C-alpha cells in the first residue's frame, strides 16, 4: 500500500496570511487550483478555499478569510486512510504536514486514480493488493481475522466447453453473489486472481464457516439459472492479532493465511468436500 509521501505534490503553492482575498482568488484562478495552504515562515496557519473566497470580502486579508482548522495528513499515512479522511470531511485537497510544517499536498483526484488501480476491471471487485491492505488494517485494530478462499471447480473445463466470454460471465456472476452475501462492515471481498476469490473478514472462524457455506450453496443454486452450472470449493483459515504492530510480520501473517486457505481449498476439491478449515 502506497504512503502519501510516495505521490504527494511537492513543492506546494502557498500564500501568506497578509495577502488579500482578491489576490488569492486571482492566484488560484491563474494556477487552476481550488485551495491554497496559508503559510507564515514554515508554519501552516490555515487553508483558503474557493468557498472561503466566495464568502469573504475581496478586501479582507487571507488571515481573516481562511479556514483555520486545517485537516492534514501525515506523509506516512496510507492512501486508504487519506481517502477515508477526505470522504468524512468532504474535502478535495489535503495538506500533508510534518510537525506543523507543510511538506506536500494531495488531491482527491490523485487518490481516486490510485484506488481505481486496486480494482479488478472484469468483476468490479478489488484486487489482491487491496485485500493485503485491508487485512493489515484488521490486524492493526487488533481484531480476529479469517480468510476464505473460493476456487471454481473445473473452471478450465468451463472455458473450454463454453468459451472464454462465457467463462468471464461466470466470474462476474460469482463476483455478484459474493458482493450480495458479504456484510460490508466486516467482510471484504476481492478477486485474488484467475478463478480465485478471497474474503477477508474480521469475523471469527465459526462465523466465517457459516458465511462460506452459505455462499457455496448460493452459487450452486444460482449459476444453473445462467445456463452454466458452477460449483466452488473453499478453504478457510484464521489468525489473531499477534503481530498487530509489525508491518513486515503482518504481511507474513496475511500471506500465510491466504496460502493456507488456498491449499485447503485445493484439498477440499480433491476430497470432494465443499470446504475445509485449517
Amino acid at each position, binding site marked *: 500500500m502506497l504512503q502519501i509521501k510516495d505521490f504527494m505534490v511537492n513543492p506546494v503553492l502557498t500564500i501568506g*496570511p*497578509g495577502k488579500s482575498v482578491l489576490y488569492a482568488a486571482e492566484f488560484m484562478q491563474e494556477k487552476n487550483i481550488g485551495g491554497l495552504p496559508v503559510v507564515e515562515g514554515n508554519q501552516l496557519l490555515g487553508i483558503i478555499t474557493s468557498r472561503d473566497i466566495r*464568502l*469573504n*470580502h475581496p*478586501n*479582507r*486579508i487571507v*488571515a*481573516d*478569510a481562511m479556514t483555520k482548522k486545517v485537516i492534514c495528513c501525515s506523509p506516512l499515512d496510507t492512501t486508504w486512510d487519506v481517502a477515508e479522511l477526505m470522504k468524512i470531511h468532504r474535502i478535495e485537497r489535503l495538506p500533508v504536514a510534518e510537525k506543523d510544517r507543510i511538506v506536500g499536498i494531495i488531491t482527491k483526484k490523485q487518490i481516486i486514480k490510485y484506488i481505481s488501480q486496486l480494482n479488478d476491471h472484469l468483476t468490479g471487485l478489488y484486487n489482491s493488493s487491496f485485500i493485503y491492505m485491508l487485512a493489515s488494517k484488521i490486524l492493526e485494530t487488533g481484531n480476529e481475522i479469517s480468510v476464505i478462499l473460493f476456487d471454481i471447480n473445473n473452471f478450465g473445463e468451463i472455458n473450454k466447453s463454453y468459451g472464454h466470454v462465457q467463462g468471464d460471465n461466470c466470474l462476474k456472476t460469482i463476483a455478484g453473489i459474493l458482493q450480495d452475501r458479504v456484510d460490508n462492515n466486516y467482510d471484504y471481498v476481492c478477486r485474488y486472481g484467475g478463478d480465485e476469490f478471497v474474503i477477508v473478514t474480521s469475523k471469527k472462524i465459526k462465523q466465517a464457516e457459516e458465511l462460506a457455506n452459505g455462499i457455496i450453496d448460493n452459487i450452486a443454486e444460482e449459476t444453473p439459472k445462467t445456463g452454466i452450472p458452477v460449483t466452488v470449493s473453499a478453504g478457510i483459515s484464521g489468525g489473531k492479532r499477534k503481530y498487530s504492530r509489525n508491518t513486515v510480520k503482518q504481511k507474513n501473517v496475511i500471506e500465510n493465511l491466504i496460502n493456507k486457505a488456498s491449499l485447503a481449498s485445493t484439498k477440499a476439491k480433491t476430497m470432494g468436500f465443499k470446504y475445509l478449515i485449517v
Partner: protein
Amino acid sequence: MEDSSKKDLSKRKAEMSIRFSEFELPPMQDILVIGRRAPIGPEAVRRMVDALAPEQYELITFENGPVEAVAVRTALFNWISRNVLLDNILEEALKINIEKTLLKVKMDLTISIFKEVDI
C-alpha cells in the same frame, strides 16, 4: 474651420480645495465593531492596531453571530467592567445591520456621584 475656433474659446479649469486636519491616532476612536462579512477582518484590525497604537486595544472575537470581533481601547476597562461594556455595545450594534460593515464607536463615560453626608 468653424469648429476649431469654438474649441479655442473654451477653457477647462479645475477647482482645488485643500483642507488640513490632524490625523486621529488611532483612526478608530474607542471601539471598533467588526461585522462577520466586513471588508476588514479582525486579524487586519489587530495588525493595524499593533502598528498604530501598540498595547492600547484589545481584540475580542466571537465564534457566532453577525459581529465577528470588537476592538476596545483597553483604558475603557478601567472605568467600566468588561461584561457591562461588551453587553451594551453588542446590544446596540445588533440593532443595526452590522454583518457587512465596520462600526466606529465613540464612547463618552461620565461617572455621577451623589452622596448624602452629615452636616
